[in-house]
């Protein structure tokens, strides 16, 4: 029998990026906040220090910072006719666990979305027509987000300054800025810090891309280019290009993470209480199912508690936001046969993969000297930056040379035809290790009525609750898009001087056994219509107005870019409305 605890004003389910942002705003508004984190507490000192931290085997291969899938896995299948099986080893995507969540092991790649992303359906129809969209795939379920770029701009700005993003503006209030990305959405001011120094592989990419008439720019990065004090008074340091950013934590206070940019202030706030090793089982509802009364969780000793609260924020990894809603009976689950229901609908992923460019032995790349976001890139093929009218697909990809380190276990480039083991393989690795450049294609993935998340009928977690089931394959639209761009990028590889250029591009079927991206999104999407969205434009559940589901589960499709900065912007946007409207008058912020 669960012990009922003293009521609080706010509970966050998860203490990662959105959980710490929401908690700080609420605690500063005078509310009592409890943060429930299923993982362990961890801090830059002592947990992220050497020699323990630069451990590729432990963190990158064995995924020590990821969700414990012995306790809670995700089941997967490519389509509804298959039987889903649990993913017992994370490979394709890496949901984080522990204080700070996935915002600890991210790379720091810090982009804004495009203006068109937020009005994706109306933009596409306006530019290309309904017939064109239907021809791209009748199964696509793209929709507008219910919020516009202009509305989000101040919140993008606020979040970038919180992180200390290092970059070069390409468009300030409509004025194109030399050195930046000429395609970017207009921003109100320059980045808080200048871009990181260009790497050698970046310089080679820049030269190749420029020779073909493209527009290279430095990748915006939350690995900082110089010491910086953020608006909360927290000091960050300069990235030292250690090469262990990806899948790892920063030992230098040089990467934005909850630990470096929010938590030290939050944890000192007397209105806040952090509870770690607490697994939330469900959100409890009143008898009418219209109001949340709190949450039920199990602590590290296996004791069950009920924590009453006035407001519940679901602030877990996107997949876990959706699972929490399903386990709590909030919102109507999506039914792929009828197309009705919303929870689990519009789950989408990210198209990734690009060519490998094998250079001459005289070109020394030194890939081990790198940060998590050291790229030089182009946006010529991003989103809707190019004319799609004769192409038969929507969406696009950024292209860039972004090598996040030449770590010894993972980085063994060998040209096609090399044996996969033995002396010849070793010789090929020694020959190519320091003379190979990877180019990223990274872009949109469109939602489809065939792809969704629901509760698995068979497999359960350590607490006896159903696992989340993922049914996913890339829509043909995404494959056409990725393959079209793959051809263009091979040309860039050749222009860079590549002796051998191995073509990239996404193929079907999607597999969970190869790393692609941790940008899982959708499933609890935002919008203007309760029939096609779980939350309104302020991320408030239509059905249970004192529950807010924050993060990328609210994105109706996946944008071209790594989505973290957009998560921050949308979260600040929602928190602003909650602080200034909801707290004054609790209830639906948008009439259903």
């Amino acid at each position, binding site marked *: 029998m669960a012990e009922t605890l003293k009521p609080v004003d706010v509970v966050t389910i998860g203490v990662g990026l959105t959980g710490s942002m929401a908690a700080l705003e609420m605690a500063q508004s005078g509310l009592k906040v409890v943060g429930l984190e299923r993982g362990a507490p961890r801090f830059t000192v002592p947990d992220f220090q050497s020699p323990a931290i630069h451990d590729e085997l432990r963190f990158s291969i064995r995924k020590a910072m990821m969700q414990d899938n012995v306790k809670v896995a995700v089941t997967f299948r490519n389509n509804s006719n298959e039987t889903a099986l649990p993913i017992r080893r994370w490979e394709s995507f890496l949901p984080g666990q522990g204080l700070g969540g996935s915002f600890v092991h991210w790379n720091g790649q810090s982009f804004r979305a495009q203006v068109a992303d937020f009005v994706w359906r109306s933009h596409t129809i306006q530019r290309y027509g309904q017939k064109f969209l239907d021809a791209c795939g009748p199964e696509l379920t793209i929709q507008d987000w219910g919020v516009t770029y202009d509305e989000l701009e101040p919140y993008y700005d606020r979040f970038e300054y919180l992180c200390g993003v290092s970059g070069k503006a390409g468009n300030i209030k409509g004025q194109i800025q030399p050195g930046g990305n000429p395609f970017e959405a207009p921003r109100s001011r320059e980045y808080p810090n200048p871009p990181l120094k260009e790497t050698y592989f970046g310089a080679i990419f820049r030269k190749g891309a420029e020779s073909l008439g493209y527009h290279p720019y430095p990748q915006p990065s939350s690995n900082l280019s110089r*010491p910086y004090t953020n608006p909360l008074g927290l000091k960050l340091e300069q990235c030292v290009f250690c090469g262990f950013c990806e899948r790892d934590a920063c030992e230098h206070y040089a990467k934005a993470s909850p630990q470096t940019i929010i938590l030290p202030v939050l944890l000192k706030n007397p209105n806040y209480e952090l509870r770690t090793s607490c697994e939330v089982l469900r959100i409890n509802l009143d008898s009418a199912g219209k109001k949340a009364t709190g949450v039920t969780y199990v602590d590290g000793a296996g004791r069950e508690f009920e924590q009453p609260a006035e407001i519940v924020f679901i602030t877990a990894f996107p997949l876990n936001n959706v699972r929490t809603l399903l386990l709590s009976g909030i919102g109507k689950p999506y039914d792929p046969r009828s197309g009705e229901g919303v929870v689990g609908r519009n789950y989408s992923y990210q198209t990734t993969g690009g060519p490998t460019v094998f250079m001459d032995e005289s070109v020394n790349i030194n890939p081990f000297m790198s940060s998590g976001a050291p790229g030089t890139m182009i946006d010529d093929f991003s989103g809707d930056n190019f004319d799609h009218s004769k192409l038969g697909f929507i969406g696009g990809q950024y292209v860039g040379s972004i090598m996040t380190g030449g770590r010894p276990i993972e980085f063994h480039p060998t040209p096609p035809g090399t044996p996969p083991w033995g002396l010849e393989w070793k010789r090929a690795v020694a020959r190519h290790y320091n003379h190979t450049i990877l180019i990223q294609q990274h872009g949109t993935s469109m939602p489809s009525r065939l792809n969704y998340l629901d509760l698995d009928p068979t497999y359960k977690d350590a607490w006896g609750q159903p696992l989340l089931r993922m049914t996913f394959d890339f829509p043909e639209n995404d494959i056409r898009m990725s393959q079209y761009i793959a051809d263009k990028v091979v040309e860039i590889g050749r222009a860079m001087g590549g002796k051998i250029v191995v073509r990239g591009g996404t193929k079907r079927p999607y597999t969970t056994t190869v790393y692609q991206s941790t940008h899982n999104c959708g499933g609890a999407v935002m919008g203007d219509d309760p029939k096609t969205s779980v939350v309104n434009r302020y991320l408030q559940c239509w059905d249970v107005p004192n529950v807010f589901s924050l993060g990328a589960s609210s994105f109706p499709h996946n944008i071209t870019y790594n989505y973290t900065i957009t998560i921050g912007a949308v979260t600040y946007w929602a928190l602003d409305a909650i602080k200034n409207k909801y707290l004054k008058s609790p209830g639906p912020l948008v009439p259903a």
Partner: protein
Amino acid sequence: MTFRRLLLAGAAAVLGPLGVITLVQAQSAGRQPDAKHGAVIVAQGTAAGAPPCAQCHAFNGVSDASGAFPRLAGQSAYYLTKQLRDFASGERANALMSPIAKALSPGDIADVSAYFVGVNAPFLPLKASDAALVKHGQELAKVGGAERRIQNCDNCHGPAGAGEPPTIPYLAGQYAHYIAFTLQMWRQGFRKNSLNTMGVIANKLDDEEIAAVAAYYQQVQSTLETVESQAKD
């Protein structure tokens, strides 16, 4: 062979064939550094007016127990080369070293550095520092300080300060007086010939903490022993 020398030998064996450009190679393309010529400069100085390095640093690079001059034996050649070039250019200003470095040609600098990196010299017997101070220093060096966001020193300077060649110098067995003096130079902005990192970190340390890390690293006189004792823990 000490652990540090093993690392250096390993670096040469692994990185060399992969073609990593070191500063030394880049600066004197087509010419290999000549450690024997370096030894002559260390012992006799140069005709251009550079005095013998050995006058202060001793022929084997251990300097003297005063700690006024840093230990150079086994220090990364890249690091030594960069410091000499920075002394010459004024990037690292020092009234003693700048004129000396200016009197050395790029080839001399490469040769002297190649000589010192290859010396396997003993550690001078020194008076033991206060045990509590060393312990405090060890904590900062290996763990850091959470309250004021001080990362540990070993992150970059290697396990027990063994160094991370080619760019990052060893601290193990370096004289406490020199480490403390250098940290003060970073803190006060007189030394700034690398990333902002050291200046920022030195500014987080108070005088007692500087004395503590300096005392700790001075007594780590054999990194091999340290690594072995860690393995037993």
